[in-house]
């Protein structure tokens, strides 16, 4: 008997609930003019059609600060542009009613981070969930001016600038570039979401591990000529280059 035709008995579970975390783009709305939104959205989609077409999208109405908005028209326009709205957060109760009529779930609007504000620096211990889904085209860089101690872990969306040391046993990660104006004794991982143009700059290389877009080198493999010197680390054809500066 083949497994796919096997009847499911009453006792074996047909499904299970699991919680999952996925990152989806959030559209922070600053205007209620649907024509303007549609026009600008299509311009953006044109820049990276593979990324945007059929991508799910969360609409954040909180930046509108309770202005009136025809949600049905907006959702239609976005669908026509090729993206798939899957929910709404923020906004007024009447907008929530509109969302329900459109069968769109309403998400809680806590921690909605606007692209214009830098997220506050979070120094975290590794067991914690560190990423909050944020989608924006420009992400501010994060500046930290206190030492990153052993066991601490920093993850930032954009560039990470540290004006202090990174201790052995600490881990700093950025989706963009990493600059460290101090000794790097821990791990530094730039371009963790695959950005191969990301780079690491540090004024004193004593790292346990450095990585750009997944291409890494451990302490043992570091060249002695690079050790304890200011360096620039980047990818060249998948090869990790460490250059004295």
């Amino acid at each position: 008997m083949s497994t796919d035709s096997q009847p499911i008995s009453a006792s074996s579970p047909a499904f299970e609930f699991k919680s999952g975390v996925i990152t989806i783009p959030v559209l922070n709305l600053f205007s209620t003019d649907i024509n303007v939104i549609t026009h600008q959205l299509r311009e953006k989609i044109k820049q990276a059609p593979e990324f945007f077409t059929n991508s799910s999208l969360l609409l954040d109405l909180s930046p509108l600060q309770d202005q009136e908005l025809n949600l049905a028209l907006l959702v239609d326009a976005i669908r026509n542009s090729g993206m798939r709205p899957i929910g709404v957060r923020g906004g007024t109760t009447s907008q929530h009613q509109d969302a329900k009529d459109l069968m769109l779930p309403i998400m809680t609007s806590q921690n909605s981070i606007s692209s214009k504000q830098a997220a506050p620096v979070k120094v975290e211990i590794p067991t914690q969930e560190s990423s909050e889904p944020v989608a924006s085209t420009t992400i501010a860089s994060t500046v930290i001016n206190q030492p990153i101690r052993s066991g601490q872990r920093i993850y930032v969306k954009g560039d990470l600038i540290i004006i202090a040391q990174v201790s052995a046993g600490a881990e700093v990660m950025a989706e963009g570039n990493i600059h460290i104006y101090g000794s790097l004794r821990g791990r530094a991982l730039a371009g963790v979401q695959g950005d191969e143009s990301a780079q690491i700059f540090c004024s004193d290389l004593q790292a346990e591990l450095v990585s750009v877009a997944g291409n890494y080198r451990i302490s043992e493999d570091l060249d002695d000529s690079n050790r304890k010197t200011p360096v620039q680390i980047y990818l060249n054809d998948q090869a990790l280059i460490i250059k004295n500066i």
Partner: protein
Amino acid sequence: MARIIVVTSGKGGVGKTTTSAAIAMGLAKKGHKTAVIDFDVGLRNLDLVLGCERRVVYDFVNVINNEANLNQALIKDKRCNQLYILPASQTRDKDALTKEGVGKVLEELSKTFKYIVCDSPAGIERGANLAMYFADDAFVVTNPEVSSVRDSDRMLGILSSKSKRAELGEDPIKEYLLLSRYDPKRVKLGAMLSVEDVQDILSLHLLGVIPESQSVLSASNAGEPIILDETSDAGQAYADIVDRYLGEDKPHRFIDEEKKGLFGRLFRS
């Protein structure tokens, strides 16, 4: 309001309890009403080092559980009337400590005491976390060897992210480095990290260097805080540390090897 000092390290055996006893006694002898709390529930030691183990009736956990009030549990030191000890429970474990309970005890102590010294257990678990959670100042006790330095660094990370001050976004805990069991001779031979090495790794304000000294062990065994032994170099080092903490500008001692005089050289064995 009292100033809450945590004596912490991450690693065990570096001299936290010795330091807590010495610092608390030093502050009390300067005329500041000081309480010292043993957070090492289950591995009670502070009462031994302070020589009051025979007078323990109630302990920290009794007070947290409202089985005794604070005045019943506090032991007044016989040598200095400004020093009080709150011993740990030996029959319980660290889970007996709760954040609310510890907070309540510290708040009550803050009303009458000038300084509260919290003797942290080793490790980075519950006991250590609660010892540092309410602190205003942290004395990070480190030995000049790599594993102790690494553990101190880890502890510093926890101090800056998991304390009450960090959670409320207040001014961070003031962190001070106390380098203990320092032996300039072995540093010179390259067998021990130097003050500079440790400072380079931890980048922390150095409050004092405590030299390795035989007198520490005998003082602990006798239940006399080492700071009371004014002839010992370790005792003097702790006295300097208390002075520096209270704002006095004292030059660092015991960092370099003592120069031997003519007699020393002649009679060197």
